[in-house]
């Protein structure tokens, strides 16, 4: 892993990977959403409103998955002081926050025709809202520590503490009586509770959104590394002219 900790080596790989990952993400997302909207059948219970699943589930997966990535990057930054780890964490946070917000809003639009309400203080919905607050807290703390020239250790610790929310989100539908449905797809179960005609566009859009998330993170990391080079060079020039 440390072999890729060198920013110059990372940038060399990232410059090649960014357009590939972005194009792959766009292609898969367009295919998934197109099939989901126009080619897949309506659900036998939920009818047409099930089509919101093709944007809601990928957003939820990336909101929670992004937070896990943020926590791993923060732990790496705290323990090994990996030079790219803080940059990666800072790149993941705004994208993860945006996907969590999209998940909450699209879920709300799904909730109204399904449950008859846009919002309920249900365990799954509330724990996702807490996830959004954790992202916002990380972003605010990281920005304030960065302004003071700190190493953003407080923000990294907050990211690690917030990991406790991830199993709560995952198991909230089992631990409490919730309006939110239980999980339909499981890696441990042999069969899925979702029909193959609905599963195919869902998997396509999950894969597409994941590649687009990766492209956003790569682009943000490249921007931050370039900014670091600008800051370092400006400092050296200022010292030379002083």
């Amino acid at each position: 892993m440390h072999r890729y900790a060198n920013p110059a080596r990372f940038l060399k790989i990232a410059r090649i990977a960014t357009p590939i990952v972005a194009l792959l993400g766009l292609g898969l997302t367009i295919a998934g959403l197109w099939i989901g909207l126009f080619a897949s059948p309506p659900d036998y219970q939920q009818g047409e409103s099930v089509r919101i699943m093709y944007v809601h589930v990928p957003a939820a997966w990336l909101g929670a998955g992004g937070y896990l990535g943020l926590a791993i990057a923060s732990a790496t930054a705290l323990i090994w002081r990996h030079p790219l780890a803080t940059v990666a964490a800072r790149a993941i946070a705004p994208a993860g926050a945006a996907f969590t917000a999209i998940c909450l809003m699209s879920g709300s639009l799904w909730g109204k025709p399904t449950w008859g309400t846009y919002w309920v203080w249900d365990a799954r919905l509330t724990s996702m809202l807490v996830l959004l607050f954790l992202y916002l807290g990380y972003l605010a703390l990281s920005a304030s520590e960065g302004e003071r020239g700190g190493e953003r250790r407080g923000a990294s610790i907050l990211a690690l503490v917030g990991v406790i929310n991830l199993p709560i989100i995952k198991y909230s539908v089992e631990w409490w009586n919730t309006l939110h449905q239980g999980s339909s797809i499981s890696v441990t179960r042999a069969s899925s509770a979702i029909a193959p005609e609905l599963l195919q566009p869902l998997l396509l859009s999950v894969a597409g959104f994941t590649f687009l998330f990766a492209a956003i993170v790569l682009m943000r990391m490249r921007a931050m590394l370039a900014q670091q080079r600008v800051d370092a060079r400006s400092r050296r020039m200022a010292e030379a002219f002083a």
Partner: protein
Amino acid sequence: MDGVVARPDLWAAFIIPAYVLTIGGLLALLVWAFVSMRRAEARADELRRK
């Protein structure tokens, strides 16, 4: 028709807004990440040439 509640059109009221919100947010994120990357890399290249 007393007591009959009109159901809203699912596509217009919920499905299209959910897609517009998601695709709009996704595109905004992609454009922001791309523009900020291009600007920062252009600044770094310009400074290196100086």
